[in-house]
């Protein structure tokens, strides 16, 4: 496989931009194409207005807000336990992962910590929700490029993970399982053995996808060298997660940040890729799914015994203060800035969602690409509308 070096990347980008400029100067009559709000490709309700010259994009602008549900305002009128039920629905594919940073922030303000068993189970469920999230992305990639079959494989194998989450939490989609100070419940019997089997299945699924989709020449030619984002631009736009690591920045909050989770007990690799193109972003996510299955396998054998809940008062009042906690969610860094004034509910919650920053780069990266590349670039950036609009 070829890896683009930095100079190649920059010259490619310069050429793209020059093309786009040239076409404006030549003044051919352009066309404005409105993609969305509902379009088969935008998995959700993102709208993109693109000014075209032939099939080339002169400029493009995403219009968000079709899924804006006002989370930040609604959290202000809910109590702390009620907020978790709501924020499950921000990134609806990896729901459990949404709860964790908020709970951690509340725990940080209350100066308590969940017992070790709860921390292990939290981390396992967190990684399971990452698998549930990213496996759908891997299948969906094919659909965006016209291959309809991979998505069925993704849905098939994702069901196993959803079954696990349902078995442990009772909720297939939105578990609302985290409590301030621990977890709602312990794991059911037989769950651990089943999890190991499912992780094996998921690794097979990753191999299949790598074989069938990533090994496909058409897929490679559609993604390689398309939508290159250099590292400094990615950082300046605040991109996180696999999108940032695909640009060669080695930054993973699971490894680089200390909080009350047990990722440091597992041995995993943080993958980066120097290219920064669509291919790199997809490939990183594939590897991350594999790593997540490995993390689950390692942690599940070492779950310590003990309670899953510390002592917390029946009516939770969080002391006044401010806390910022973020974790490495499936889509990238998701953080909650919680301001409490000692009431039953938070005074203000700023939700920093990953997709919002990741997708704000689109006007920059879509300049000069072809119409079909809009779809592949958007697919590889991987956003979820609830995560953009909140």
């Amino acid at each position, binding site marked *: *496989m070829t*890896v683009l070096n930095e100079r190649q990347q920059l010259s490619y980008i310069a050429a793209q931009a020059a093309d786009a400029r040239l076409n404006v100067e030549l003044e051919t009559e352009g066309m404005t194409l409105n993609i969305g709000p509902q379009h088969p490709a935008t998995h959700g309700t993102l709208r993109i207005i693109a000014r075209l010259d032939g099939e080339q994009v002169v400029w493009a602008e995403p219009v*968000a*807000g079709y899924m*804006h549900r*006002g989370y*930040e*305002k*609604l959290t*202000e*009128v809910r109590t702390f336990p009620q907020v978790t039920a709501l924020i499950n629905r921000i990134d609806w594919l990896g729901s459990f992962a949404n709860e964790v940073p908020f709970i951690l922030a509340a725990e*940080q303000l209350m100066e308590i910590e969940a017992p070790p068993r709860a921390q292990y189970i939290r981390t396992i469920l967190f990684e399971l929700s990452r698998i549930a999230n990213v496996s759908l992305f891997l299948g969906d990639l094919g659909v965006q490029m016209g291959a309809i079959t991979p998505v069925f494989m993704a849905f098939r194998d994702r069901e196993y993970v959803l079954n696990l989450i349902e078995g442990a939490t009772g909720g297939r989609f939105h578990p609302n399982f985290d409590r301030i100070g621990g977890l709602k419940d312990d794991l059911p019997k037989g769950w651990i053995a089943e999890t190991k089997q499912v992780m094996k299945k998921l690794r097979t699924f990753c191999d299949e996808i790598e074989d069938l989709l990533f090994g496909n020449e058409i897929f490679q030619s559609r993604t390689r060298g398309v939508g290159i984002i250099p590292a*400094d*631009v990615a*950082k*300046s*736009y*605040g*991109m996180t997660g696999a999108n940032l690591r695909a640009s060669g*920045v*080695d*930054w*993973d909050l699971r*490894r*680089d*940040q*200390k909080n009350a989770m047990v990722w*440091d007990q597992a*041995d*995993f*690799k*943080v*993958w*980066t*890729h*120097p290219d920064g193109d669509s291919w*790199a972003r997809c*490939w990183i996510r594939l590897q991350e799914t594999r790593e997540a299955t490995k993390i689950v396998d390692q942690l599940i054998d070492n779950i310590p015994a003990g309670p899953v809940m510390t002592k917390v008062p029946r009516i939770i009042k969080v002391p*006044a*203060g*401010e*806390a*910022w906690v*973020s974790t490495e969610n499936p889509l990238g*860094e998701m*953080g909650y*800035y919680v*301001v409490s*004034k000692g009431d039953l*509910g938070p005074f*203000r919650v*700023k939700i*920093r969602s990953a997709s*919002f*920053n990741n997708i*704000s*780069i689109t006007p*920059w990266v879509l300049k000069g690409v072809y119409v079909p590349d809009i779809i592949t670039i958007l697919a590889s950036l991987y956003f979820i509308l609830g995560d953009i*609009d909140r």
Partner: protein
Amino acid sequence: MSDTATGTDETAALPGDGLREGIVDRLRSDLGEHLLDTYLIPHTDLWVRVSAEAWGQTAAALKAQGFDHFCFLSALDWLPSPFGKGEDDPDAEPVAISTELVQGYTGGETRFQVFARLTDIKRHVGVTIKADVPESMSVPTWLPHFAGANWHERETHEMFGIGFEGHPDLRNLYLPGEFEGFPLRKDFPLLSRMVKPWPGIVDVEPMPVAAQEGDGES
């Protein structure tokens, strides 16, 4: 496969407080008296408050220090909500709500504060920067320093009505064009809660009477 993979198992050394104090010291030497206040929780986090004029300058100074990853930018409204939660029994006596402004960490003087967070990826440390929003309801934009501030400033403008000098394009990001008001201000009422009192904790509702066998069509 020549795709490189870095990363090791060793957890990077946790930043001690010497690191955060060093950041504050350097920022103080860059900004001088514009650095108004700092707040530090050991081994956890760092807050600084700067004056509104130095808002843009702070971004440049921190970026020069290595804080080149833009995390978020938003605003805080310190006014206690005049409506409470809006779900109370309408017949009950209205509870007197204090309108005193109590700012959080690093203090402040005004009702609105903008705050943002930057991360230093190399040193694994983040900093939250706050600034009071003056009467003119406008602070300098961060766009020249961080391209990602674009959407965040648009969002803040839409939600709080805070302007950003130098931002070319403060259109609404989320709400439809005819929307009035700034939803995240504390004095923006949630009308659904105003008109519908919360029923309190209800017991399980009785099942509907199974008397609808009559309409046997379909």
